């Protein structure tokens, strides 16, 4: 046990170093503008610069590529308006499950974030809003104790300060490595939303690729308004599990945003180019809700 604590202490030192580097979240991470990006869907190549100016939507096939939380904020919010909350929160159980610590460290290094969600307060078209963005690049956006706690604190902050709330989901579900504690985050976040809603709070849930498992089965599906990005995978169980259970091949469009909308579970599919304006319109409509 002692060596685990020692290891964790070393880790914390590493994180502190990482966090002390000045970093503005309003600037997307550095990249080589002439670098070529290949679309995950059609395989079409574009320069990273063109892709970025097209909001990381493939110009050939309209596929909406995954965004980092920083890219999402850059596209969406008023310049320099973001104040991050609970940035340094980390889990006390990363050393407990075999292989978890290594995997976690790699994800920290690759993303520059300490967890799979970025939370804070920003203005969008002048509307002050509590905002959470899950990061599919960080352990598949999975929800463990920290993701659940950060989201719950943000909901409570929105409740206290009478702010509207927007959560961008992108997650494979609950984080297996943290076991039952991950499962309980579904109950915790949903309970916080229940109280927020009872107090008149306004919550927009935006489902992005992918939103599945314990995240879709908790806060992601509880929006007063639920939006989805085109083509996003949205569902509860994984495709392979379902195919194995029912012993049939599922249609290609199964569990897409379009499919889920047809079944009646999202309010609107909104292309990335229209997202900021749609959110501003919805926030303006519900200004009274937050007072």
């Amino acid at each position, binding site marked *: 046990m002692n060596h685990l604590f020692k290891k964790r202490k070393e880790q914390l030192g590493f994180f502190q170093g990482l966090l002390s580097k000045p970093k503005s979240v309003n600037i997307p991470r550095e990249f080589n503008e002439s670098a070529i990006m290949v679309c995950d869907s059609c395989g079409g190549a574009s320069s990273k610069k063109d892709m970025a100016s097209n909001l990381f939507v493939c110009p050939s096939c309209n596929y909406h590529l995954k965004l980092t939380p920083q890219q999402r904020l850059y596209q969406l919010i008023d310049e320099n308006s973001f104040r991050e909350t609970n940035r340094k929160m980390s889990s006390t159980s990363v050393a407990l499950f075999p292989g978890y610590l290594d995997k976690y460290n790699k994800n920290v290094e690759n993303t520059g974030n300490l967890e799979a969600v970025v939370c804070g307060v920003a203005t969008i078209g002048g509307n002050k809003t509590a905002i959470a963005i899950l990061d599919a690049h960080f352990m598949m956006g999975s929800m463990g104790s920290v993701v659940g706690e950060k989201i719950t604190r943000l909901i409570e902050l929105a409740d206290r300060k009478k702010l509207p709330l927007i959560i961008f989901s992108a997650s494979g579900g609950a984080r297996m490595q943290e076991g039952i*504690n991950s*499962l309980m985050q579904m109950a*915790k976040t949903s309970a916080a939303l*229940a109280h927020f809603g009872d107090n008149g709070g306004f919550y927009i849930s935006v489902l992005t690729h992918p939103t599945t498992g314990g995240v*879709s*089965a908790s806060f992601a599906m*509880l929006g007063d308004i639920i939006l989805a990005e085109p083509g996003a995978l949205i569902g509860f169980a*994984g495709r392979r599990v379902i195919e194995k259970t029912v012993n049939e091949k599922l249609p290609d469009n199964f569990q897409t945003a379009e499919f889920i909308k047809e079944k009646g579970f999202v309010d609107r599919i909104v292309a990335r180019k229209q997202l900021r304006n749609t959110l501003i319109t919805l926030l303006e409509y519900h200004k009274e809700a937050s007072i």
Partner: protein
Amino acid sequence: MSHLTAWDRICIARSQNRPKSRDILPKLFEDIIELYGDRCYGDDAALIGAIGRFEGMPVTILAQSKGRDLQENLACNFGMMNPEGYRKAMRLAKQAEKFHRPIITIIDTAGAFPGKGAEERGQAEAIASSLKMFATIQTPVLAIVLSEGGSGGALALSVADRIYMMENAVYSILSCEGFASILWKDETRAKEAAELMECTSIDLAKKGIIDGIITEPEGGFDHQSDEVYGQIRSIIRRELNILTKIRVKNLVQQRYEKFRAMGNV
């Protein structure tokens, strides 16, 4: 009590001979009247919904039902609920709230059903709504994990003021097969996963997730284990006695704080 491995307990919990919801309900409640359907799509036999009396007090019973033989197993989909099951649970929970009846849930499921129709009818939405509704329902809720409590499918009926587990029951983020499949892409390592998952009643009591354990005789309880049924009755008696005396507003607040505290950060 603790010489059994987690895998041993999983095997006991899943044994076909172990009493199922249909066996234990008549031993705990009188005048049971089953109520069916979600008033929306259909009835889900994987969830028994009923009104009954516990030592004279009217209660609403929501019990996941795996079935006692193959015919029943098939009829109730081995206890794996569809969205209409969760919607039936919510309907009857709201009814319980309206008529001031405490709710007793019995958990026994490997998980929510991963079927095609379940996705089409909004399995995720049904579970999410259930979590949200139980979080603020204005009546006492007592959950008992009978054998298997798997993933969101079990959690949806366990957002309760008190959660008890049978000694040999397991309660986890996913079945150990699913866990092994996700982490190692190898379902056959389920036994290994079981030991890592901390899913036994003893593990969960230590973590403060549950409020107590109902002890079982060596090898698991059976239809003749009157002492075990006596323990369950005395827990229900004691907890209902406490919970029904708490003002509803405080009860909901305490329930919030209970789940609010869960997690390691």
